[in-house]
């Protein structure tokens, strides 16, 4: 897993509440045994018209948005299906950070497995970020748990100790679980 330290980027704003994983990546793109290359299908139904042409007013299609790595979204991001294809598609497009007022549980867990940092902010701070100019830089320092909007003071964001460690060190969760093999065996014997 890719490690996460600090990052600075302008944001892409998709300010819709309750963006579900069917919007992030529609089911017809799940027929793959791969994880890579899903970025082209990210937000497909919003991004492309009936005939496959790009919708010019959708953020991801705009020249100025290319290369940005922070997504600023509405409330309850990632609800719906458990498909890990959603964080795969977001990462594959190039996102490293998603900022929202809340995230759905399974999406949160899936994002963590893929080095995607989810930052939960309160409504007030969300409004500040939304109101900021489109080309305002946002700096993120995971170790310090700080988010700084250009021209403003750093503000702290919450993250649990384990997620922080996973992201900072690129911790291999499967390997970590395997290191408990003897506990697992003991548990099985004791039932």
């Amino acid at each position: 897993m890719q490690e996460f330290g600090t990052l600075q980027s302008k944001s892409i704003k998709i300010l819709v509440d309750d963006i579900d994983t069917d919007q992030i990546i529609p089911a017809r793109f799940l027929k793959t045994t791969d994880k890579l290359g899903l970025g082209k299908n990210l937000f497909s139904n919003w991004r492309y018209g009936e005939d496959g042409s790009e919708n010019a007013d959708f953020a991801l299609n705009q020249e100025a948005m290319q290369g940005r790595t922070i997504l600023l979204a509405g409330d309850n991001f990632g609800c719906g299906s458990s498909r890990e294809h959603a964080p795969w598609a977001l990462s594959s497009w190039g996102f490293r950070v998603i900022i929202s007022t809340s995230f759905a549980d399974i999406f949160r867990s899936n994002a963590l497995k893929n080095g995607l940092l989810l930052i939960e902010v309160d409504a007030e701070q969300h409004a500040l970020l939304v109101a900021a100019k489109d080309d305002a830089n946002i700096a993120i320092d995971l170790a310090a748990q700080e988010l700084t909007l250009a021209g403003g003071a750093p503000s702290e964001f919450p993250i649990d100790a384990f997620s922080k460690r996973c992201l900072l060190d690129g911790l291999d969760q499967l390997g970590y679980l395997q290191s408990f093999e003897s506990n697992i065996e003991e548990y099985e014997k004791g039932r």
Partner: protein
Amino acid sequence: MSVVPQTLFDKVWQAHVVSQEPDCPPILYIDLHLIHEVTSPQAFAELASRGIKVRRPDRTVATMDHLTPTLPKKLAVLDDSAKNLLDTLERNCEEHGIKLYPWGSGSEGIVHVIGPELGATQPGKTIVCGDSHTATHGAFGALAFGIGTSEVGHVLATQCLLQERPKTLEVVLSGTPGPGVGAKDIILGLCSQIGIGGATGHVIEYRGDAISALSMDERMTICNMSIEVGARAGMIAPDETTFEYMKCRPMAPAGEAWDAALAGWKRLRTDEGASFDRTVHLDVSALEPMLTYGTNPGMGMGVSGKIPDPTNANSASEADALSKALDYMGLKAGNPLAGQKVDVVFVGSCTNSRMQDLRDAASILRGRKVAEGTRVLIVPGSAAIKREAEAEGLDRVFTEAGAEWREAGCSMCIAMNGDALEPGQYAVSTSNRNFEGRQGKGSRTFLASPLMAAAAAITGCLTDVRTLLNE
């Protein structure tokens, strides 16, 4: 010695914690792992790349459901990529010694339908699947939840998961539902009451007289949609109804083992005085048959209601969401939903494809004809249900009315197998999600019960099923 009263969830959780390290989520043991073709291949690939074998194939059960055609027997799969996923699952199961209920074998079905049917789903178990509707199994007093593909790999490799302990939410259901109102209306009622993020971070326990009165099929409908309010899982304490259902299921314990299991299951209830983090009440006698008007399951209302007006919304973002949804749905605020024309009716999915659902739909369709120009698909949840329905003659009720009677599978719930709506078409669907494009690109979905779906099939438009009950 005083014992701290525990909730049903506390009991199941505590019995499955393998280890708890500081600054690390608890390691939770998983009793049953259900897998299907869409969310498992990358997990098996991860195991292969590390040279790991599946740790407990005996605790793993596989089926094919999302991509399988529902037209009669062994017709061509939609496309090569779908075929590749089905073949990949078969290969992976063979290589790791996992029991697979393959498509066309007569034992296949939607993963959340066959688990209970086989008796693999049991009270007090921890059950996971790479599918968010795993909460269905909570109807038996199991702790069952959906996981992502990386976690599918974790369970395949270690039979364990790293899991933060969720909070608990008590949903107390009281009252007796009126005619034409059932389990689907109850859960859609809860969705519209607390919203689709209303239970995020929580495990729900459904309690109260209105729950005890429900059959297992109905309880599964309710638990199934726990994820639609954002809950991690939904649970119902097992009781005589549960035990009666469990008896003689192929994978249920038998003989002395049954007696021992039963004694344990009877302790799986929330103790007097146990506390929940939150409580929500819902009086089911106040519910009408429900319909959704928008693009998430929380945007629902009683059939006689009027489509809400964004200008009355509580916040700007709610108003935006509602305007966007009505725009997508091609509906106008202030109008009634009843009378709205529908193109397709879908009865199926892990929410509503069991015997009781099919009987409900048949009770309306019997002796009547599907409206001209309306397409009606009836898709049983499993091959076993299909046989049982046919033995009861339900298939003839459906086909004589002019509906299509299909093979088991997910079908138009997720529209991955070729069963899909055309852009712009309206469907009444007994499934669980009305998200934009869920039933095919541009599809517009009204969620409803099997009774309400059947009523729309007869009239060709959204119809209060109670007007047909009285005829």
